[in-house]
């Protein structure tokens, strides 16, 4: 964590009354989310219904999990471009092994193992051979997409009963609202990740690594294990996200999740995590995903807006957050 020197000006004076500065970006995202939901509630009938929010969680469960993994990587100052392809690969492995009649537990095990292995391999390349994260994960992205085509070029439907049961299962909340199991699972992942990052030795090393790798090394922190570990975690999260995506679409397809890595990165950035590493929170990434989801809900509620406004809005939001971070971290 770097120390920010208070500067003169409106911004600094406003900051003096606010909670610790490191929470500012997350609070900003939270305010943005609430604001967007509020505007939606005023403009469109039924938007403010709690079920809309719960559906938002359900529709974006896979992205939440992806963003969690991406947060770990970005906190160390790296980036993982392979997650989208990894999701597609996971859906295909799941669909194919289910088609072959494997038991569900084995299917889940294989998918998670494959994703984690891919992540670990990239981490090893990055740490031990000094290959830039960008390039190493680019290779991982191509590799996973290529493996997808080797498994099947066509879409494979998932007809397994257990999978369908999980996909459509939900808990009923008081008031007649319901929350899908996949959404609950995603929230559990967020909670676990938040705990790991804030209260475990591994989590603190992730922050230290992002702050300054040479310093972390000199402090005797396990840099190698942590650096490889974050990519393994990202791979694992991508595999989990892939399983959730397979549940969401009930199919495995090599063209699933094209460009989803961009959404995950955008969610992390909008969640206030510094792309240079060292600062940010998993909860921010969750909020980032919710903001992205709200934009889509907005557009579907409106009906007159075209789908491409989603991308443009996300771009603008990323820009705003990046520039804001630049201003906040300027010494």
């Amino acid at each position, binding site marked *: 964590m770097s120390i920010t020197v208070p500067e003169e000006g409106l911004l600094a004076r406003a900051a003096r009354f606010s909670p610790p500065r490191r929470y500012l970006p997350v609070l900003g995202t939270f305010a943005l989310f609430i604001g967007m939901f509020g505007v939606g509630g005023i403009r469109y009938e039924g938007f403010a219904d709690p079920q809309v929010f719960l559906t938002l969680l359900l529709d974006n469960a896979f992205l939440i999990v992806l963003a969690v993994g991406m947060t770990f990587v970005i906190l160390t100052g790296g980036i993982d471009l392979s997650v989208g392809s990894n999701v597609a690969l996971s859906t295909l492995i799941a669909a194919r092994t289910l088609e072959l009649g494997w038991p569900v537990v084995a299917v889940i095990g294989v998918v998670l193992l494959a994703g984690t292995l891919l992540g670990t391999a990239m981490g090893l390349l990055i740490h031990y051979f000094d290959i830039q994260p960008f390039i190493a994960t680019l290779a991982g992205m191509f590799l996973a997409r290529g493996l997808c*085509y080797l498994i099947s*070029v066509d879409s494979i439907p998932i007809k397994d009963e257990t999978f369908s049961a999980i996909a459509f299962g939900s808990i009923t909340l008081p008031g007649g609202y319901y929350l899908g199991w996949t959404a609950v699972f995603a929230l559990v992942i967020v909670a676990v990740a938040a705990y790991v990052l804030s209260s475990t030795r591994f989590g603190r090393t992730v922050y230290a690594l992002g702050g300054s790798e040479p310093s972390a090394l000199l402090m005797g922190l396990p840099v190698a294990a942590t650096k490889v570990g974050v990519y393994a975690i990202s791979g694992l999260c991508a595999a989990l996200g892939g399983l959730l995506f397979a549940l969401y679409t009930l199919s495995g397809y090599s063209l699933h999740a094209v460009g989803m890595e*961009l959404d995950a990165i*955008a969610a992390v*950035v909008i969640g206030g995590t510094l*792309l240079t590493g060292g600062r940010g929170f998993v909860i921010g990434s969750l909020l980032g995903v919710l903001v992205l989801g709200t934009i889509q809900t907005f557009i579907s509620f409106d009906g007159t807006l075209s789908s491409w406004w989603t991308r*443009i*809005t996300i771009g603008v939001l990323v820009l705003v957050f990046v520039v804001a971070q630049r201003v906040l971290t300027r010494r």
Partner: protein
Amino acid sequence: MPESPGTVKALGARALAHRLFWPLAALGALLVVNLIATPTFFNVRIQDGHLFGSLVDIVRNGAPVLLVAIGMTLVIATRGIDLSVGAVAAIAGAVACVYIVKSPADGAAGTAVVAVTMALAVCVALGLWNGFLVSVVGIQPIIATLVLMVAGRGIAMLVTGGQITTVNNDTFAALASGHLLTLPVAALIALGVFAATQIVVRRTALGLLIESVGINPEASRLAGVRSRTIIWTVYVFAALCAGTAGLIVAANTHSVNANSLGLWIELDAILAVVIGGTSLAGGRFSLTGTLVGAMLIATLTRTIPNIGIPAEANYLFKALVVVIVCLLQSPKARAVLQRRRDRTPTGPSREEAVV
């Protein structure tokens, strides 16, 4: 290598140490594989005054990636990266096609010229935007260009109205499928841009200045180099190259699909640059290397179906190429290899290549 003594060994070591040795060797190997699979692979024939043949196809199909990669080389040389080139290509294609379709004389040559000019003007604006974020606001290049990468396809769809716009304009189509002096126009454009860029950066001080900015922007500024202007210029140039590539792709299909035009071209371009030996850490670039890299990718794309592997497996091989090339260029991997084979003393030349 320890088996060949004397001067042959020294020559071999020098060839091995040359940074283009491995890319060229890979390119050669791929061509040989093709030749074995299809003995007529190297045949080039003249038909209706046009050159035809697999090799010509490779150069023609590799033109968009080469164009994008040329711009990318200069950006990377300043220690930057431009992720938005695919989106810029899509926007350029969209602007040109929509203008042609909306224009009353949609088949006229003049319409095509105006459309292309307009598209390139838009690209300059997009390049200025990227350059502004990087050099003035001071955002990391990978993040600054991510903004346009995310938003760009949305903008392209906004231009086309989400439709796949099809054009019927022979002059515009000639950008991709036309021939000039028996050679395909697309290849001529790409090679022309390559030659012009090579001359400008290597015959003037510009190349040196770009490298100095890449090594240390602050020191360059203090030494009197206008870092900001140079950084700004390379982003505009990269966007222009990307736009030209987008126009060629759009002309090739006579249409523009904002979602798929130039998809992942930024990755292919970066791959070409890295294969060519340009360091992603900035400060050192080789346009010739980029040319070899782009041709290697184009040949690979052609080889896969030629030897009977489904074209989709392309990605798998690209992944392998990325990993192998990066390992060969990585100082750490070289050091490991060196330790393995270092029973015999080695010349200093190999160290040099590591840089």
